[in-house]
């Protein structure tokens, strides 16, 4: 067998990844994926800042799961500090999470159409996405990185006009989504291109622990919003969507991932609709006084592990706070792509070379979330200076906190 080893540059996959494929003719025998094109150093950076500064940083880990990341962080800090979020803020957070999911799923659809070569469909999807971005801009002032999250609530409040605008948006999508769905799901364009590409069977998906839409498209019944409800998701019925409900069966290929995301778009609209009916009144911030909040955070101590079902799947953060300063002792981020990436070589094996970009993209990768690491010190294996745990400048030894 004549095997050709071919490095694919980022232009081949539309993501800053270096993929080396071994080819037998047009078939991929083996694939090796190398990260490291982005050195972001977010975790390291955050240790030198105070919590109020880290929250906007968490927002900027990624442009499209911005709220999920920020909210995970805010919830972790709230859990440690014992801040109870008022009910209206819980509803607003849920609302913005769903708006973010709509925006992210539309962007994914557009990218999928682009990689499949259907620029006209891409523009159609993007023009639909404009509406939710306009909505976000109208509600929060920004199209992405909306800055909704705050410790103990949200920074944004809604009035009646906003709720009316949201209802109009839902009506708009109810009108515009069905023709798009017909073209994408029943039309030949993407079906011929995506069906049977990048198949991830259910058993393999379970073993690799994939999360989010990738897992659901493979037939797993998993959704954090359903299995461990947070914020306002506990108040109404959220079932994980399954492709087999619409298509009869699920094969776990790229086409199923697309169908699932369209189904989730509609689910998000349903959630927003139910949510708007039952939105409670009251405050959106648990602690209004700045100084009291700072005091609460200064006294907080402990560890928290919090996860949120972002548009790409489970976004997980482990936060450790020490008493005495408004700063992190340690922060670990695990985005959905970090988990899903381990299945990429498997998905690529046996596929055609021209499908590489399509397969990698079908899992909705976010390299920015994954490569948040930048070890500044040399770390040879045997002898290593201990990393500084706390951000203390005075060299105070960090206490170990009981887990």
């Amino acid at each position, binding site marked *: 067998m004549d095997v050709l080893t071919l490095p694919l540059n980022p232009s081949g996959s539309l993501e800053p990844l270096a993929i080396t494929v071994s080819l037998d003719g047009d078939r991929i025998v083996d694939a090796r994926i*190398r*990260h*490291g094109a982005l*050195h972001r150093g977010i975790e390291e950076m955050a240790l030198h800042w105070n919590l109020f500064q880290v929250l906007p940083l968490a927002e900027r880990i990624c442009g499209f799961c911005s709220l999920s990341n920020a909210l995970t962080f805010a919830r972790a800090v*709230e*859990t440690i500090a014992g801040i*109870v979020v008022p009910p209206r803020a819980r509803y607003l957070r849920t609302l913005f999470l769903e708006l973010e999911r709509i925006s992210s799923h539309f962007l994914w659809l557009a990218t999928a159409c682009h990689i499949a070569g259907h620029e006209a469909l891409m523009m159609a999807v993007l023009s639909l996405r404009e509406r939710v971005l306009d909505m976000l801009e109208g509600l929060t002032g920004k199209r992405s990185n909306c800055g909704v999250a705050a410790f103990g609530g949200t920074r944004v409040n809604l009035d009646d006009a906003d709720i009316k605008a949201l209802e109009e948006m839902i009506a708009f999508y109810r009108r515009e989504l069905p023709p798009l769905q017909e073209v994408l799901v029943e039309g030949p364009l993407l079906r011929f291109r995506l069906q049977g590409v990048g198949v991830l069977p259910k*058993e*393999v998906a*379970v*073993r*690799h*622990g*994939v999360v989010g839409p990738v897992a659901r498209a493979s037939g*797993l*019944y*998993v959704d*954090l919003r*359903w*299995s*461990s*409800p*947070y914020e306002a998701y506990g108040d109404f019925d959220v079932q*994980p969507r399954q492709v087999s409900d619409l298509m009869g069966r699920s094969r776990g290929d790229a086409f199923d991932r697309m169908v699932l995301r369209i189904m989730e778009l509609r689910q998000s609209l349903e959630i927003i609709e139910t949510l708007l009916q039952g939105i409670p009144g009251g405050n959106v911030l648990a602690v209004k006084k700045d100084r009291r909040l700072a005091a609460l955070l200064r006294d907080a101590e402990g560890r*928290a*592990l*919090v*996860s949120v079902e972002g548009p790409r799947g*489970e976004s*997980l953060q*482990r936060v*450790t706070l020490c008493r005495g300063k408004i700063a992190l002792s340690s922060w*670990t981020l*695990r985005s959905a792509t*970090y*988990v899903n*990436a*381990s*299945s990429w070589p*498997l998905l690529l094996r046996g596929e055609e070379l021209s499908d590489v970009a399509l397969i990698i993209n079908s899992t909705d990768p976010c390299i920015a979330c994954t*490569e948040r*690491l*930048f*070890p*500044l*010190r*040399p*770390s*040879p*294996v*045997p002898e*290593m200076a*201990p*990393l500084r*745990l706390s951000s203390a400048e005075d060299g105070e*030894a*960090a206490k*170990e906190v*009981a*887990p």
Partner: protein
Amino acid sequence: MIYAPEYVIQATDHREVLSCLEGRFGADLEMPQLKEGEAQSPILTATLPKARLLEFVDCLAEFDFPHFRALSGEDLGEAILLHYDFALFRSAGRGKRLEISASVRLPSGDRLMPSLVGRFPSAEYGERELIETLGLDFEGLPDKSPLFTFDDRGRRRVAAPCDLDGGVH
């Protein structure tokens, strides 16, 4: 050991899981605790000796296939604390999901951990990252090359702090 990859539909009671683990591991399981709150899903935390980690995971697998969520490490100076996060009963029903956080304390000087890649392929990234950041070593990890930091020739790229203020602006 490779488990049958399937999620169970019927969740075991969370307290039952805890008591089963306590019975199995006895004094090795330090500070086992089951927190059930409203803000978060129930979480079971415990500290383990490293020798019994694999046994712990296999014990979890008797209830359900554990979903490997994350592996993270904290350097405490005199020791390294590793957190293995799993989830059980992921698709067993609303509110049934149980998070399990097993912490392993590695005293300084001991850098070798058993690898979980044989059981959970997605553990690879977490383990490779810890090789890079904390300088650990994992027994049984097939690919120990750095994950995020290396140059074109496959050498580890080490950024000295002076790289940062080398006239970026």
